[in-house]
């Protein structure tokens, strides 16, 4: 515990949690389906998220088919196009990225990395997954109901989202809103779990300042999500009321098809404030775990301590706090009082400072390292390039007056895909290559991993880098049809076709990844307990894969920070956190 001085911790007997306090599975059902083991729940979250994410990937192909080769596939009419972009966006942001980082990596890594036997509320943890599963199923069902899923755009802006001429009015919009509500309830159960586990269940000697940055990232992101999701929750409930009970929270007097509707007095802008009060922190809810994980990947595979650990922690916390006062930068041209622009542009650009510090520290961790180009390192490097690129284009959009011409154009699409699509997903891939051996006891195929990396990284860069320039010309986003736009030269259409072809190639490369995941389960090289020679606790478990309860009879004791790589005088180039010995100069605890 934190109150034990670290120099005395060598003599402290290990804390013991009686085995009986965990609910051990008695049957196949309670072991693999309704499991209370965080590691099984993590895999359930990850597999569900990857499967629904694959659906969203296929949807992105349909989008690109229409944009690159309009009219080629008759199935994609305007109604379906808007349904496709809506579902692609919502699935990717909420049901893939949020669920995979927090539900997947959070569940697997928190108990193992802090040295706990499990999450502190295993039953709520199980419920969390099953509510998430129900939320995903509601979305899937919406593809098959009359009228199909909603086509309101993932931002679900009223009044359009609930008007009768928007696709998916019969069932789609209701299923979307209910699915979000269920997701948030489920997430809250998981989120409280992650938070309390990090604060209360750490092993002896594991002070907060000895936590690996992965845990810091996931922890702060979880706290943010617990504060941000309620805004989306009430917005969804109010919109359901507007749609089905005739209230007018978001609905002013308006005319549809020449008829005046019975709504009046509500404010569409109110919804946007609620949505982005959730939506902007959401960007960092995805980014912070990625920041944390990538720090650990770089440090481990460059065999060097993370540079400036303390700054990294404070940058994570600072970004988390600041991200709650920047939301209206999504609304510079929304018609809100334009004087807000001064405030939100300033806060938004301030956030660039802690973010830049993180980038410098990753890069300085490579300096004088011993860099091994293992697949996790390659993906981490891909992350640095795409994140720096996407972060810098954010400085265009955050600076209110520069945003005016770019807002709602393809520049925005390119920016957020680069920074919160490609960059975090590269981290997810890197993390899967990194921790798969712990989960399964086998390595993923190296050649397939490298092929997967190069096609995904270079392909994604070729998709999204040129896309910025379409927006620079003024091409609006969410256009079903770009033919005949005066500012769009013929070469712009060729560029769109090129982007589409790259998207198909990158998409197909993901099949190699899926094949690798399945193939290596049986045929992968046995990894041993610590194939990357890493310091953090999850690699020090007595058995691999770790069983329910993680640690056998004794919980680990922690004697050092997470980054004792290449310590001068040490016989190996890494010292595990649970290895007794004198405190090194890096240890901030």
């Amino acid at each position: 515990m934190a109150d034990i001085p670290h120099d005395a911790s060598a003599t402290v007997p290990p804390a013991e949690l009686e085995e009986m306090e965990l609910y051990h599975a008695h049957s196949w059902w309670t072991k693999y389906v309704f499991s209370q083991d965080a590691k099984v729940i993590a895999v359930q979250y990850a597999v569900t998220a990857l499967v629904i994410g694959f659906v969203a990937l296929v949807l992105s192909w349909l989008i690109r088919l229409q944009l690159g080769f309009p009219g080629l596939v008759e199935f994609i009419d305007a109604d379906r196009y808007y349904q496709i972009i809506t579902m692609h966006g919502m699935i990717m942001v909420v049901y893939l990225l949020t669920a995979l980082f927090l539900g997947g990596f959070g569940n697997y890594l928190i108990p193992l990395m802090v040295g706990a036997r499990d999450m502190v509320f295993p039953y709520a943890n199980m419920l969390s997954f099953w509510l998430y599963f129900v939320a995903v199923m509601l979305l899937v069902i919406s593809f098959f109901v009359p009228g199909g899923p909603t086509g309101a755009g993932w931002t679900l802006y009223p009044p359009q989202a609930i008007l009768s001429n928007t696709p998916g009015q019969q069932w789609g919009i209701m299923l979307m809103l209910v699915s979000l509500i269920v997701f948030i309830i489920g997430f809250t159960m998981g989120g409280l779990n992650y938070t309390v586990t990090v604060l209360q269940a750490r092993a002896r000697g594991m002070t907060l300042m000895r936590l690996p940055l992965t845990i810091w990232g996931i922890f702060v992101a979880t706290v943010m999500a617990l504060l941000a999701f309620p805004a989306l929750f009430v917005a969804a409930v109010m919109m359901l009321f507007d749609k089905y009970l005739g209230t007018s929270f978001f609905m002013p007097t308006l005319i549809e098809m020449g008829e005046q509707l019975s709504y009046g007095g509500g404010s569409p802008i109110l919804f946007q404030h609620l949505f982005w009060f959730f939506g902007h922190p959401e960007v960092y809810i995805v980014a912070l775990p990625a920041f944390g994980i990538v720090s650990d990947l770089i440090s481990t595979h460059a065999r060097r301590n993370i540079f400036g650990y303390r700054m990294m922690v404070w940058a994570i916390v600072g970004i988390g706090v600041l991200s709650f006062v920047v939301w209206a930068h999504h609304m510079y041209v929304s018609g809100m009082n334009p004087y807000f622009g001064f405030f939100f542009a300033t806060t938004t650009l301030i956030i660039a400072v802690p973010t830049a510090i993180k980038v410098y520290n990753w890069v300085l961790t490579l300096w004088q390292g011993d860099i091994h180009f293992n697949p996790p390192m390659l993906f981490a490097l891909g992350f640095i390039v795409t994140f720096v690129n996407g972060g810098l284009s954010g400085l265009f959009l955050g600076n209110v007056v520069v945003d005016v011409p770019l807002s709602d154009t393809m520049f925005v699409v390119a920016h957020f895909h680069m920074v919160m699509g490609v960059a975090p997903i590269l981290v997810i891939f890197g993390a899967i290559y990194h921790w798969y051996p712990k989960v399964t006891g086998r390595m993923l195929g190296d050649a397939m991993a490298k092929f997967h990396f190069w096609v995904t990284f270079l392909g994604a860069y070729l998709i999204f880098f040129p896309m910025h320039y379409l927006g620079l010309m003024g091409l609006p986003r969410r256009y079903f049809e770009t033919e005949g736009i005066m500012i769009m030269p013929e070469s712009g259409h060729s560029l769109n076709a090129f982007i589409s072809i790259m998207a198909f190639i990158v998409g197909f490369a993901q099949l190699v990844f899926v094949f690798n995941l399945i193939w290596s389960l049986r045929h992968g090289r046995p990894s041993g307990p610590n194939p990357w020679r890493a310091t953090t606790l999850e690699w020090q478990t007595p058995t691999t894969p770790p069983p329910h309860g993680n640690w056998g009879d004794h919980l680990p004791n922690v004697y050092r920070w997470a980054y004792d790589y290449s310590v001068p005088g040490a016989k190996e180039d890494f010292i595990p956190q649970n290895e007794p010995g004198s405190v090194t100069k890096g240890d901030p605890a």
Partner: protein
Amino acid sequence: MFVAVIMVVIVVASVAFHVFSPWWFSPLASNWGYIDGTMVLTFAITGAVFAAVVLFVAYCLYRFRHQEGRKASYEPENKRLEGWLTALTAGGVIAMLTPGLFVWAQYVEVPDTATDIEVIGQQWLWSFRLPGEDGKLGAADNRLIGGDNTLGVSPNDPLGQDDLLIEGGELILPVDKPVRFLLRSVDVLHDFYVPEFRAKMDMIPGSVTYFWVTPTKTGTYEILCAELCGVGHSYMRGTVTVVTDEEYQEWLTSQSTFASLSS
């Protein structure tokens, strides 16, 4: 080695693409050259940072790649270096934000000489209302829409009787005269966007939003809707033609007033 080379190629190719690709701003036709200026400055600063960071990474990857016997150094922190980098970043941010905020102050402050022109969006059509001889627009409200009064102009406001209404037609503007667009929507969100003017703003049913612009070049430009407004969103296009003042005055005389349309 290979990875380092690819990193260098990414930087070189990105810069080359930026310089040589045919895709760039549409030619400016308004007073908002400052926006372009701020953007070019932002490109210069961010481009330099991107190149510096990625090239530094490339150098590290080449210089510190794993080789037999190589051992990483152990340096947990360097407060001086971290301090310098933070200060440098803050400087760059200030360099971009300061001009940005000054230009934004101009964007929100409408000059007194600006003429009001109302733009009304509906699925999926642009309409316009211009002040008549009194130079003022009459009151309007979506609750008044019905029958012939498709734009909701108040029949009781004397100021509105001489307003000129253009439904679903082309907008004509005089060159070099500041215009304040007052934006309304009768149904969902829309956004009045002319790429050559640079400026844009959402239109919200129940509110009136605004932005101002001075067209500086005669010619015909396309109005694009830039806020998702339903399945016809990408077809919600219109045209605005900027003409000389004489041509503008002549065009005005051929438009119908609210009073004449509703009688």
